[in-house]
């Protein structure tokens, strides 16, 4: 398997071609716009949550295979999760795509592990991180815009 095939795992390619939860969600309780002006990645993340839990989540926009599949799998994973857990998952994900992490943490990421290869492509870390940063922003104090540049 070549280096690029390691990055572009079958699951990533599948989510890129058929992104899940790929739509505007209106109404929503939280949202954010994440963009990466340098390469043109540009996504909106929509969340509906009650005090503790993410009830629904979707995303829409355009970008590379890494950013789009990252959005698709993020929405799949987070639906129904307690907000606290979602934020922990985000932390672990961001850690995994930029450095080596412990086997336990990796395990907690479930199928998101397919993004492990990203850490060997420093220029692409921000692609994988984009929707997660938008999530962080949406759930954080300010709901607004975010950028990974």
């Amino acid at each position, binding site marked *: 398997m*070549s*280096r*690029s*095939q390691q*990055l*572009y795992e079958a699951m990533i*390619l599948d989510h890129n071609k058929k992104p899940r939860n790929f739509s505007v969600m209106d109404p929503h309780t939280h949202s954010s716009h994440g963009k990466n*002006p*340098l*390469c*043109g*990645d*540009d996504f909106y993340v929509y969340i509906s949550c009650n005090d503790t839990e993410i009830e629904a989540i979707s995303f829409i926009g*355009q*970008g*590379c*295979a*890494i950013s*789009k599949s990252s959005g698709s799998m993020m929405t799949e994973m987070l639906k129904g999760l307690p907000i606290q857990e979602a934020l922990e998952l985000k932390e672990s994900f961001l850690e995994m795509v930029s450095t080596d992490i412990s086997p336990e943490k990796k395990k907690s990421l479930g199928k998101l592990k397919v993004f492990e290869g990203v850490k060997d*492509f420093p*220029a*692409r870390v921000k*692609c994988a991180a984009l929707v997660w940063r938008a999530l962080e922003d949406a759930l954080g104090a300010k709901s607004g815009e975010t950028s990974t540049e």
Partner: protein
Amino acid sequence: MLNPNIRKQFPVLKHIENGHELVYLDNTATTHKPLRVIERMTKFYTHQNATVHRGVYGLSQSATDYCEEARKKVQTFIKAKHEEEIIFVKGTTEAINLVAESFGRFHLKKGQEILITEMEHHANIVPWQQLCIKHGCTLQVAPIKDNGELNLEAWKAGINKNTGLVAFTHVSNALGTTNPVQEMCDFAKAAGVAVLIDGAQAMSHIEVDVQALNCDFYAFSAHKMHGPTGIGVLYGKHELLKIMPPYQTGGDMIDVVTFEKTTFAVPPARFEPGTPAIAEIIGLGETIDFLTEIGLNNIFHHEHTLLNYANIKLKEIKGLRIIGEAKEKNAIVSFVLDDIHPHDAGTILDTEGIAVRVGHHCAQPLMKRLEVPATIRASFSMYNTLEEVDKLVAGIKKIQGIML
């Protein structure tokens, strides 16, 4: 084609990227430097280092001479009338900022228009926008045609009695389009309008004759013409430079300083405050010698052979669309692939050792106009080969194999 031995002047081409010998096709972003340019700078730093302008001692006198020789080489290279018309700056970006501030502030009036084109690099858009905000001018944008050529008629129609300055690129970095700069200068000067040409992508690829063009300003960067980083040139007509106020101020550009008042030196000193980029200026001079020895015509021919071959080969690939097919082009090919984002393409090419540029190429408005978020861009230089074009084509097929 040029003698392939020329590659020996560029050891970086032997760099191994991901197990493959580097195929460097990002010459539009920056070019590699021949050994003799690197060696010239090393020699200066190792054996000749001193500051310029002020020393009575021999070492400083020589450093001054080397820099002034470099100025003369630039003058000859772009066929300027006077060496005082050559101003050393950081690069194209600074050159355009200098003109926007110094010429713009004092010679453009409120209500006047600045005409640019839809294909400009951010460096030839944002400084004018800032100027317009500060001084109440309006930015006008001439459209391009779908094939990436300037809509020349629309551009001409964009010039009116309110036009204070036109600024356009000689060669588009994103599309490769070579503009009809002579015709544009003739038209603008006949209308009495000041002209700035962004020459970042022209230098070392095509001959430039600023006197024939009759442009008022011409800007370029050494690092894009096989010269060092940190140095570039603003050519300005002497009659303008001599009435323009200084841009940055400090030492070496003054005549008399008192706490009450400062009088400024004549050009070029007026526009070169502080200690200049001495080693880089000397390196630029050596670069020009190198280019002159090879001959711009030979470079042009070599690069266009590559361009023509790439055009043929790339068009054979299904699902590939070339963005920008102007009749007159430099050796730059921008393209997109159906259902594949340029960023993914760039990453996969990198794993094959092929360095291309993907993104908006600092030309976001142009990308918007062309309705693509980004493109993949391969750009060729004197050291590239037909085999490297073949490798690019194979790389693209590999991308499609993985992604589709």
